[in-house]
C-alpha cells in the first residue's frame, strides 16, 4: 500500500477533530459572554432596588442625604390634597368690649366638624 494513501484518512481525522474543537471553543466563548451579560444586568437591578428601598424607608442614625422618595412610588395618581399640615385644629377668636365700665373678653371657638370635647 502507498504510504501517502495510508496517511490520508489520518489527516482527515485530525482536520475533523480540529473543526470540532474550534466549534466547541466558539460555543464556550459565546456562552460565557451571555452569562456575564445576564449576571451584570441582575446585579444592576438589585442595586437599583436597594437604593429605592433605602429612599422609601430611610435607615436609622444621623441625618443623611435628603431625597423626595418618589422613585419608590408605585401607587395611584392622587390629584387632590388629602390632608393639611397646620397648627392643632382649634382656633379661638377673642374680642374685648366694655360693659358697664368693665372689660369683658369673649371668645368664640372654631373647631373641626364633628369634634367632641
Amino acid at each position, binding site marked *: 500500500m502507498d504510504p501517502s494513501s495510508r496517511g490520508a484518512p489520518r489527516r482527515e481525522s485530525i482536520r475533523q477533530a480540529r473543526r470540532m474543537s474550534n466549534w466547541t471553543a466558539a460555543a464556550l466563548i459565546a456562552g460565557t459572554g451571555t452569562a456575564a451579560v445576564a449576571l451584570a444586568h441582575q446585579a444592576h437591578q438589585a442595586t437599583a432596588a436597594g437604593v429605592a428601598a433605602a429612599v422609601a424607608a430611610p435607615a436609622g442614625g444621623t441625618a443623611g442625604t435628603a431625597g423626595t422618595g418618589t422613585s419608590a412610588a408605585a401607587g*395611584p395618581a392622587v390629584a387632590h390634597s388629602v390632608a393639611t399640615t397646620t397648627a392643632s385644629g382649634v382656633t379661638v377668636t377673642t374680642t374685648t368690649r366694655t360693659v358697664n365700665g368693665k372689660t369683658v373678653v369673649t371668645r368664640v371657638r372654631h373647631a*373641626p366638624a364633628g369634634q367632641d370635647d
Partner: protein
Amino acid sequence: MTCGAAGLTRPGPWQRAPWQRVATGDDTVAVAERAALGTSARVAVWPPENLGAACAATGDVLAALDLQASRFRPDSELSWLNEAGGGLYMLGDGLAEAVGVALAAARWTGGLTDPTVGAALVSLGYDRDFAAISQGGEPLGIPALAPVPAPGWPLVRLDGPLLRLPPGIRLDLGATAKGLGSDRAARAVMSATGAEGGVLVSLGGDIAVAGTPPRDGWPVAVAEEPDQAVPSQLVRLAAGAVATSSVSCRRWRRGGAVLHHIVDPRTGHPADGPWRTVTVAAATCADANAASTAAIVAGARAQDWLTTAGLPARLTGHDGRVRRLGGWPADDGAPVPVPRGSHVYPGGPR
C-alpha cells in the same frame, strides 16, 4: 418604687365620635376623619378598601396614647405621675416610649423643647383640654401668675421603663406626643393591612406617611391656621413626615395678656419670636413635631438651628414673610425632600 396607673381603661369623651368619610375628589384613596385628643385625626389609605382596618388601628393607637400621655385626663398614666409628687416609677411601655422620645427631643433641640414645662403651662392657665378653656366664650380675666421656667429635662432620668422624677416637676409631652401618635398610627395601619398599599395619618395637622405612597407622593396642603380657606401651598410627601407649629391658634387671655400654648422652657413665658408658623419635614413625625416647636421657641435663631439640623422647613413671620430652608419647595405641587434618620427614636425611624 411605685407603679404607674397602667391598666385603667376608661375611654375619653372624644372616643365616642365616629369616623366620618371625607370626599377628596379621588376615588383611588379613601379618607376618614374624627375628633381625637382635643383635635382631629385623619386617615388616608390606598387601596380604599383598607379604610376600615386603618381607622380601627388608628383609633386603638390614639386611645392608648390618650390613656398613657394626656395631661388633661385625670386617669391617664401621666396625670397620675404628675400628681404623685416625685419618686421612682415603673412606667408602662407606651408612656416609657413617650417620655423617652420627649427627653431625646429635648437633648436634640438643646432644651428648646422640654418635657418639664408642665408647671409653666399650668401657671399660664393651660391646665385642661384647650377646648374646655375656651368653651362658652366666658370672660377670663384671671390675674397672671409669675412665670415658671422649666426645671430642666436633665433632672429627669429614664432607664428603660424606670423613671426618676424629682419632686415638683410636672411633665408635658406636647412637643412630641402628637407626632408620636401619628408615627404609631401609621405603623399600626401598615401592620393591620399586611403592608398593602400606603397610609397617611394626620393628628392635628402633624402628618406621618408609611408604605407605598401615591405616584409623586401624598398631596398635602400647608396652612397657617386650621380654618384657613385657601391653603398657602400644596406639597407632595412620599415618605417620612411633616408637622406644623404656630402661635396663631390655641391662644387665650390671662391677666390682660393674650397667651398661646408654645412656651419657652427657659423663661416660662409664651414664645415671642419673629415666626408665627413653622412647618418642618423630617424622617418621623415626632422629629418634625419637636423641630417645628423648637423653631418657634428659637425665635431669631430658628433658621440657624433648622439649617444645622438639616431639616427642610417653611417659616412664616408675623408680617407674613415666608422663608424656605433646606430644600423646601417654592412651587405648588412639588415634592418635599425627606431627610433620613431620626433624632428622637432609638435606632432611627419608627
